């Protein structure tokens, strides 16, 4: 991909970027320190014995700003190459990283953030996390493979999106935690304190005007700094490898690993849209309307975050940054090698059942039999998968009512139709992780495999 650029040339190119980048982070921290000091919000971390001098968070961020300034100066004076993660560390990261570690890791990380939210939303903690991630980004940028994929013009917005999502997830959780603490003390949510009325002119109109000017400026700067991509003229005979859909559909393309196109490309997107539209009609919880809260709507919060952050966003990130030629998985610092071979020995459930378990071979209609018998034999061949699926969707909703007090109460409050919509949506959503697990643990390809009618599941 970048075979013709030598590492030295690459470092020269990236050094300028890193200088500006580290300087930006330094200024950011300096402003944070200034703000904390000016507003008197700096927290005392420790008091020096004797003198009574206090070390506050403002000092810490000032120190961090100093460190980043030094990094910036270092990068600009030919030291950029040294500002990298140790090669051994990068190799280790690549070798552990794979679809399983990535997906399960993201899930565990988000679950940990959720459970420890009272701690992680603290501005100091969140700011430290931001600094750490920016430092990691910076150190990774001197890796050619990392840089070449992150700096691809169409991928830059995705990096921005990750940070925006991180910021807004933090902001909402920060407010939610505050509100939840207030509610526990019997106070009203913060938003309620602000319900006096103000005139739209000037309060809103001016905010809007400033936003528009700011955004226009941002778009101009972005457009000047980053050229829109234009590759070779279209050619229907030269297929690029990998061929990727536009980035916002890469989560769906990633699902193609586990599902056939009729599921990943048609049914599941349909379910996503339908499911989103159904939300207001199946969420009967009256609390949490018009203010941020987590405790008052834990189930809705977790379900949505699972669908949005885990199933939609992390899969997009994976499809964009970690899937290379032949849709093989590549670590963050790994060269996209088109000749990388990954052994695929996935097995259908019918194979497991008829061949490995019963040793009879898969049922097959005698040659020349009629349509009816052919279908009969297909169904017989796939009977275990069909049975499992019927059991899953037929038995799932009632089983949830019988065995879970939580869903029983839901059922009683929601009524039959709403409950069926909700439970089926949840079962459909859970199918993807189930298929992933089956693939990773027992190399399961299809539960139902009817290639005769393009019906693989």
């Amino acid at each position, binding site marked *: 991909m970048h075979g013709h650029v030598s590492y030295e040339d690459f470092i020269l190119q990236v050094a300028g970027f890193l200088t500006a980048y580290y300087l930006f982070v330094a200024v950011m921290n300096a402003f944070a320190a200034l703000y904390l000091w000016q507003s008197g919000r700096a927290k005392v971390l420790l008091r020096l014995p004797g003198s009574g001098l206090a070390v506050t968070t403002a000092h810490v961020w000032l120190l961090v700003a100093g460190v980043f300034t030094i990094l910036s100066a270092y990068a600009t004076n030919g030291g950029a190459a040294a500002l990298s993660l140790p090669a051994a560390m990068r190799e280790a990261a690549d070798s552990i990283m794979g679809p399983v570690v990535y997906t399960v890791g993201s899930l565990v990380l988000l679950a940990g953030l959720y459970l420890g939210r009272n701690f992680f939303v603290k501005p100091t903690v969140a700011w430290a996390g931001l600094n750490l991630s920016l430092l990691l980004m910076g150190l990774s940028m001197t890796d050619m493979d990392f840089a070449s994929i992150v700096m691809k013009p*169409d991928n830059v*917005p995705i990096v921005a999106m990750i940070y*925006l999502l991180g910021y*807004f997830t933090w902001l909402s959780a920060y407010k939610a935690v505050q509100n939840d603490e207030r509610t526990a003390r019997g106070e009203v949510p913060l*938003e*309620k304190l*602000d*319900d*006096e*009325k*103000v*005139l*739209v002119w*000037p*309060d809103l*109109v001016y*905010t809007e005007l400033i936003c528009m000017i700011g*955004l*226009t400026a941002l*778009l101009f700067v972005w457009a*000047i700094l980053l*050229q*829109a*991509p*234009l*590759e*070779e*003229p*279209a050619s*229907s005979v030269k*297929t*690029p490898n990998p*061929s990727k*859909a*536009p980035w*916002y*559909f890469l989560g769906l*393309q990633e699902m193609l690993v586990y599902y*056939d*196109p*009729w599921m990943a490309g*048609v049914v599941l997107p349909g379910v996503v*849209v339908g499911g*989103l*539209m159904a*939300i*207001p*009609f199946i969420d009967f*919880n009256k*609390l*949490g*309307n*018009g*203010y941020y*809260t987590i405790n008052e*709507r834990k189930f809705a*919060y977790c379900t949505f975050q699972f669908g949005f952050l885990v199933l939609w966003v992390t899969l997009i990130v994976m499809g964009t940054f970690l899937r290379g030629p032949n849709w093989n998985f590549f670590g963050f610092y790994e060269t996209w090698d088109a000749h990388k071979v990954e052994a695929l020995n996935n097995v259908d459930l019918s194979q497991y059942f008829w061949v490995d378990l019963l040793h009879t071979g898969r049922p097959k209609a005698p040659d020349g039999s009629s349509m009816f018998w052919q279908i009969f034999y297909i169904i017989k061949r796939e009977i275990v998968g069909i049975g499992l699926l019927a059991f899953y969707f037929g038995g799932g909703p009632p089983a949830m009512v019988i065995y879970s007090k939580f869903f029983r109460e839901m059922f009683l409050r929601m009524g039959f139709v709403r409950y069926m919509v909700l439970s089926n949506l949840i079962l459909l959503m859970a199918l993807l992780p189930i298929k992933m697990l089956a693939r990773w643990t027992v190399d399961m390809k299809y539960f139902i495999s009817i290639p005769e*009618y*393009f*019906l693989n599941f």
Partner: protein
Amino acid sequence: MPPLDEIIRGSQIWKSVFRHPAPVDRRNRVVVMLTNFFLHLHPVSIKKQGISLSYTWCMGGVTFFLFLVETVTGVLLMFYYRPTLEWAYNDILALRDVASLGILREIHRWGAHAMVITVWLHMYRVFLTGSYKPPREFNWVIGVVLLLLTLLLSFTGYLLPWDQLAIWAITVGSNMARAHPFLGHEGPGSALLTLDGIDMITNASDARFGLLGARFVGEETLNRFYVLHCVAIPLAAALLMAIHFWRVRKDGGISGPL
């Protein structure tokens, strides 16, 4: 002589356009909201938290603004770009290399990416504040359609530069339609749709063909996507946005604790 701005504000022309004195006092700040066409989208007064940036993140507004930016830059690009196999790629190339306002393409492309991101963030905020709950259920549904239209706008526009990135992304994307249950020629059940033993769903009659106007991504597709991108979807989105904003007002303004 009176100051210049007083002369301007006192002139007959100015008064014919703005039917009220400068909005510097309370009365005229109300009047301006009621008489100005653009401003009357807004109410006259509003709950303080409804305009708090940390509550709404301004993401709906930003999405709308980006839609306007895309409309303006898009119309300007349409003056230049010709959606034919002969010219499409070359026109984009010229926008990059020779056309003096070629940067419009950059703004248009980055604006489109940004709009996809901001519409997700807007949905995220609406969810997290529970603002889809009664009485705003229907506006959420309209929002979901708007989300879909935003993605389709971006998707159809992706093809227009007619480079390798474009046609292969659209090929990968539209290959899905081939697998549409019943309606795609490689989809489950389509083989059952036969008439006197003749397949009704073939690669020249299925959902993918309808989308592309051909069996492969070709000139017909370029034309189809161009019309969708420049006319059909923007019109639909604009209409739905109008309804969306109307409903924000009619559902009681920005949500807030009861």
